[in-house]
């Protein structure tokens, strides 16, 4: 078995309730666009971020951080440091309780994972309904089994998230961010950038008035959504030069397990950590 562990910051720019998730700019929820940014597109990005905000301006995306083959850690492997991406514009589906009924349930669809480095590509799409390969989440949302498979477990005030993100005290994170943004504003001359910082500062200062939003902002910092399923659909395996030194199994599903959490409503970034297990037969 080839086990690829990955982690890093992801970006998801979308409005949250009581806004509609399709709201292009965010008004009454905890997330919003600021001057100079394009409207929300809801897409979950593991790389190639759109208008990243301080302190995520130079954030690397999601990478493979460990490789194991048959339980043996590989210290030098071509996929160490490989880029991990979700293709085809995935979004969190919830639609304010229309397509999922439980709080904090957010299936991701489409789910099309790609890991690539040094000319190697390992890529596979999960079919939400294998019997109907073109179906999307909206086609199957009434099928509890299919939805549950792609659903998530929720934990709040997660230890794992705290240690991965550094968000150890949620109120302090917000207070510290406010101070940093104010310092940044004092040094910023460009009017659009100033307006962008002022809007973020105002939002945190509004914690004084919006108790619900303050609690939501803090809660998301510590929330962990854990997903686990086996990727079952069409694949791409590209290994010119045989750098993997083995054969990837494609008749079998590939189990993936990951969590996403520590979502910061100020930066619109969260953290992801997980493993992809790929059937692998080592060449002798």
């Amino acid at each position, binding site marked *: 078995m080839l086990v690829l562990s990955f982690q890093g910051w992801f970006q998801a720019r979308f409005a949250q309730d009581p806004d509609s998730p399709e709201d292009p*700019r965010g008004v009454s929820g905890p997330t919003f666009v600021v001057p100079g940014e394009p409207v929300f597109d809801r897409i979950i990005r593991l790389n190639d971020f759109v208008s990243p905000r301080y302190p995520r301006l130079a954030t690397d995306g999601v990478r493979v951080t460990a490789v194991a083959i048959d339980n043996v850690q590989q210290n030098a492997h071509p996929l160490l440091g490989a880029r991990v991406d979700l293709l085809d514009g995935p979004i969190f589906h919830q639609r304010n309780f229309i397509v999922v009924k439980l709080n904090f349930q957010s299936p991701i669809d489409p789910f099309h994972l790609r890991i690539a480095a040094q000319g190697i590509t390992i890529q596979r799409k999960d079919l939400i309904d294998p019997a109907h390969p073109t179906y999307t989440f909206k086609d199957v949302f009434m099928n509890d089994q299919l939805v549950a498979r792609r659903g998530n477990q929720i934990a709040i*005030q997660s230890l794992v998230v705290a240690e991965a993100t550094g968000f150890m005290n949620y109120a302090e994170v917000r207070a510290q961010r406010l101070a940093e943004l104010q310092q940044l504003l004092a040094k910023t001359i460009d*009017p659009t950038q100033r307006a962008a910082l002022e809007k973020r500062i105002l939002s945190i200062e509004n914690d004084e008035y919006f108790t619900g939003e303050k609690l939501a902002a803090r809660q998301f910092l510590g929330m962990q959504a854990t997903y686990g399923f086996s990727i079952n659909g069409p694949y791409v395996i590209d290994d010119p030069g045989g750098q993997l030194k083995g054969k990837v199994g494609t008749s079998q599903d590939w189990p993936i397990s990951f969590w996403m959490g520590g979502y910061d409503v100020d930066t619109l970034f969260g953290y992801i950590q997980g493993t992809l297990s790929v059937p692998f037969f080592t060449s002798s």
Partner: protein
Amino acid sequence: MNLPGQNTIQTRDELIYLLTEAAALEHSLTCQYLFAALSLKRDTSEGLTDEQMNDVANWERFILMVARQEMEHLGLVNNLLTAIGASPHLLHDNFPYPTQLYANVMALECFSEQTLRRFICFERPANVRPEDAYCMLTPVPPPDGLGGPTPVNIKSVGELYEIISSGFQQLTANGVNLFIGPPKAQVTPQELMTYFPRVGTTGGVWDIWLSPITDYESAQHAIELIVEQGEGSTVGGTLSHYATFVRILKGLQSWQAKDPNFQPARPVVPNPALYVESGEHDRTLITNEDARLVLDLFNGAYETMLLMLIRFFANTDEGPTGLGEMAALAFSPWMTMVIRPLSEVLTSLPAFAAGGPQRAGPTFEIYHDLHFLPHERAAWQVIFERMREMAAYALQISQRPNVPERMKSVAESLRLIAVRFQGDMKLT
């Protein structure tokens, strides 16, 4: 019976009467605040600078929060009605209409200094003089030709709740067995999906706190919450609706002083209407064809929401599944994915067939008595058929060339809601 005009409550009926007035008032304020908030401009392409747009978006955020809390008050008042054995009240007069309150008119008007002054008057704390809160000092005379009880002679929202609170106190002291209604027919955080634990609280999502009413203490707690949040707080704290509107007014005046051409709101016509009777001069008939279609859909969606809410609050034979489903759809999905987006589409559409800058807006019109649908499965079927019809209608509207792209997602939301409702309730 001691008539309510004498401002004392001595019977359950009188308490029901005043709570019904309170419910109509909270509903009316919700509509007025939503109208003003949703008339605000959306982005700098509408002629505002980034700085101005930051403030305008912030004002909208605050007014929507106030509107949510008015919905919370409507929920609490209906909980109070249910708790004392009465039926819920979810109707209001069509706008505009006169009121005995100092603001003197209930009207749908776009965001402006005049509108904010009216809102400030509505939310005036008891220790602020009416003239200092922009209230009209010449009261509207009561209507003639009464065939029923004398209307309540109450000048402020705070006064209304003071009398209601005293009524609960008096009737309880008199030994009346007030709390006879079923707790399960009340809105609580469970129905709104806001009851989840986190540090410091289990509620407060969206800045609304709902609680069931089961006894005298919980009834008074609900009334105190309503008053504290804004309808007549004696101190008008910084979190109150009064203080919020005063802050917004100061912000607006500050921008106007810097830039006399500052226009934060779209030119939404006052008191828009889909239908106007001959002789009615205070309502603005919407004549643009696209706007009329969207408005027709909006009014249908609004009515359907009210039917769901009436069924929820007045449920008789509903099992947990039915109650849960009604609540699950009527609140977050319907309000945030249908009502509000349709309102926003309306304010982007022209009001008149002849063109011009004026925009349409949501009317919250109710054309006929909305009755409680009394039989569970029949009620669900009626509501489902309305949903299905609206989904098809929305799809047709979304395909018209001059209708905003956003209509497509509203149509999709309506379709998905109908699919969910049909599946969950096993309807044909």
